[in-house]
């Protein structure tokens, strides 16, 4: 369901920086439906990729075959990302906080972590440069603390400073797609707030799974439209038949 909801966020023709897993599913679903001209860029260097199978790694050889361009990673980061050519960047994370800051580095302290996570990869720079960022993450109080243990990828306010004050080119995480609700950033404060619920989910349920007193947008859309039969068919039968990333 998160993949289907994320897919709807993509507009046809957009240049999208894709990660492995749900973002990849979402992008390929969008391509199969309303956005056939979506241009997928993988940080490994494939531009305009048309993977014929679900890539397990961003270095999968299926990203190369039949893509529009394959370049080195220095070009990906300098000529595409820092150049401002990426319209949408997808990020996930072990922790997402009140201001959309993401932690994929450590749970606990940096020097003596309780859990060592993989680290930034390209996430820090994607969060800074992509014209807008979409976060995909399952909702839980552990995953949505008021303040992340480590800011790997900046959101809307970092130690009291706004993106603009820090000189960040992109708009940052405008939406967080979870399995219970959609959160969006308040244009003024940058704080995440609940803007739409999934069918059958209550606001209390959402609030219980967020580590701070999350605000709710006044004109809350009551329910997210559930995946259509076509969306489900594509996801389950075509894009991820082996259920590598889909849970349901």
């Amino acid at each position: 369901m998160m993949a289907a909801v994320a897919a709807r966020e993509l507009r046809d023709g957009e240049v999208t920086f894709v990660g492995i897993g749900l973002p990849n599913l979402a992008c390929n679903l969008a391509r199969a439906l309303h956005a056939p001209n979506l241009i997928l860029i993988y940080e490994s260097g494939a531009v305009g990729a048309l993977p014929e199978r679900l890539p397990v790694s961003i270095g999968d050889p299926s990203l190369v075959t039949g893509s529009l361009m394959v370049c080195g990673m220095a070009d990906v980061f300098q000529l595409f990302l820092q150049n401002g050519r990426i319209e949408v960047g997808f990020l996930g994370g072990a922790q997402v906080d009140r201001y959309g800051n993401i932690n994929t580095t450590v749970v606990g302290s940096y020097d003596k972590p309780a859990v060592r996570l993989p680290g930034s990869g390209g996430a820090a720079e994607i969060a800074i440069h992509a014209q807008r960022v979409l976060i995909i993450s399952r909702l839980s109080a552990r995953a949505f603390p008021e303040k992340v243990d480590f800011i790997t990828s900046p959101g809307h306010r970092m130690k009291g400073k706004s993106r603009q004050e820090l000189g960040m080119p992109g708009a940052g995480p405008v939406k967080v797609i979870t399995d219970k609700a959609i959160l969006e950033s308040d244009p003024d404060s940058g704080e995440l707030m609940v803007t739409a619920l999934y069918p059958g989910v209550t606001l209390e349920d959402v609030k219980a799974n967020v580590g701070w007193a999350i605000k709710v947008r006044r004109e809350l859309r009551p329910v997210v439209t559930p995946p259509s039969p076509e969306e489900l068919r594509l996801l389950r039968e075509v894009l991820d038949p082996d259920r590598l990333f889909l849970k349901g």
Partner: protein
Amino acid sequence: IARLTPDLIYDQMIAAGCARKLVFSWAGNPGAGSLHAFRRAVEKGTPKLEIEEYSHFGMVSRLSAGAARLPFWTMRNYMGTDLPVANPLIRTVTCPYTGEVLATVPALNPDVTVVHAQRADAQGNTQIWGLLGVQKEAAFASKRVIVVVEELVDESVIRSDPNRTLIPGMIVEAVVVEPWGAHPSYAQGFYDRDNEFYVAWENISRDPARLEAYLQEFVYGVKDRAEYLKRQPGLQERLVAGQQVSAGVNYGY
């Protein structure tokens, strides 16, 4: 040892105690789980492992600086992140035109870079197609370069398509001809990624005893790559690449 994405080969080196320090930007087993030997080292200190951490762009930039023999590289990056706090080598420089403050990383000049490629000639002129990563930058940044290839070809093959040459022989110390040398990873046009093994690694690497047994059987216990492959029957049939050959282009004038 340094790599943007240390993978399960690095996990093996950490487990085997071959790594003193890891310089990296993403340490995981993509699509499969964690590098548990790496995690044990960082979380529990066994074995002891120093780390120095950047983002991908930072690591790419470190190698770009090294390859250009400059002491640093400039990026618009890291504002608002905790990476410069965790790593004091991430610094800033002021633009002499605009006054803007930009992020810098120091050059990385490895002692040795090992590059895997599809083909090279005996002089080390190396051609790679498919993903290029930071192979060119890492090779030029390095004091010495070792190229591992699927195929040794005549110089005339290299000269027939000079735009595909990524690494010139003049910077290459040694060429190792080792078909299937990238397994469990892949070589575009030769064989596919062994996803089954990446998934299996999650459980092997989670258990130090199983990891040690794996090292005994497939690393310490084999005399060469041929024996490594012989112990995995069916592997080559399962992973050999299909044919999707590009057309040539005219270099005439």
